[in-house]
């Protein structure tokens, strides 16, 4: 391998510090329903490891997962990796390392160390965004495991349904909300957000249970496998 190929990809400023990482990651984690672990010494230890990894491998990869060298795999463990494992983490109450814990967990001490993966198939409430970030009469696309889901706000009510139009596979969340209908952006097919029905035959979409808890929008899915 030439020196050129060995060059470290640099996307962070030189001499990035733990405080820089906290300032950078905190707001993103918060939008996803997570916060830094309440065990501050542990947080510093994990972030210190991430700085070591950053210096060596060029990005803040998860210190608890192995880099394979294949970027198509490794990008899934760039910290915070919450979006790629949102259903598993919702069930665990934390990310793999425990650097981040769910915002509703008051004490993160008990979550440190345990990495047992939750049983696939069980229902889990996954935080997808804050209610304040979803204006009434709008929709947004969220991805949970293998599910592409349109989350829709009608007044103060939240609904969740498949994001894929059964007509030509358009992304429904890019359409618009008309009363309780989510209207497809490509050909105007209308889906009732309450039950996923449409007036076209055999074209209803799947719905998911959704609710708001402490200002966070939660969508219920059956837990998938992490790999």
């Amino acid at each position, binding site marked *: 391998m030439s020196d050129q190929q060995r060059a470290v990809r640099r996307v962070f400023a030189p001499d990035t510090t733990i405080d820089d990482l906290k300032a950078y990651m905190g707001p993103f984690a918060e939008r996803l329903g997570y916060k830094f672990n309440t065990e501050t010494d542990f947080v510093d230890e994990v972030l210190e490891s991430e700085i070591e990894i950053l210096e060596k491998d060029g990005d803040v990869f998860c210190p*608890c997962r*192995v880099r394979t060298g294949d970027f198509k795999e490794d990008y899934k463990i760039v910290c915070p990796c919450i979006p790629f494992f949102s259903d598993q983490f919702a069930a665990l109450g934390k990310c793999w390392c425990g650097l981040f814990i769910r915002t509703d967990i008051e004490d993160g001490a008990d979550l*440190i*160390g345990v*990495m*047992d*993966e939750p049983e696939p198939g069980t229902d889990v409430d996954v935080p997808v965004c804050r209610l304040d970030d979803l204006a009434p009469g709008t929709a947004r696309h969220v991805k949970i495991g293998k599910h592409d889901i349109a989350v829709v706000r009608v007044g103060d009510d939240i609904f969740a349904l498949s994001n894929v139009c059964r007509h030509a596979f358009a992304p429904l969340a890019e359409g618009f909300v008309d009363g309780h209908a989510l209207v497809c952006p490509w050909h105007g097919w209308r889906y009732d957000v309450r039950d996923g029905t449409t007036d076209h035959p055999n074209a209803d979409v799947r719905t998911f249970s959704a609710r708001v808890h402490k200002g966070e929008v939660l969508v219920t899915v059956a837990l998938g496998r992490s*790999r």
Partner: protein
Amino acid sequence: MDIHLYALSTCPYCRMTKRYLDDHGITYDLTEVDLLEGDEKQSAIDRVKELSGGTSFPVLVADGEVVVGFNKSKIAKIIGL
């Protein structure tokens, strides 16, 4: 008892596990997977996947039992602490 610890040199849980075993005077074989290269690294990753079903670290193997993460109570039970 044969104990083997698969770890990453950068991983806080791996450091905690090593500290825990060292503090209790337990001897073990250690493979720091991220410090390996080429085929050796790949075969260690494959072994970890085979043992644990994933790529989370550390993975401790003792008498055929496998513990993923720094799960102190599980480790203590398996190695009889």
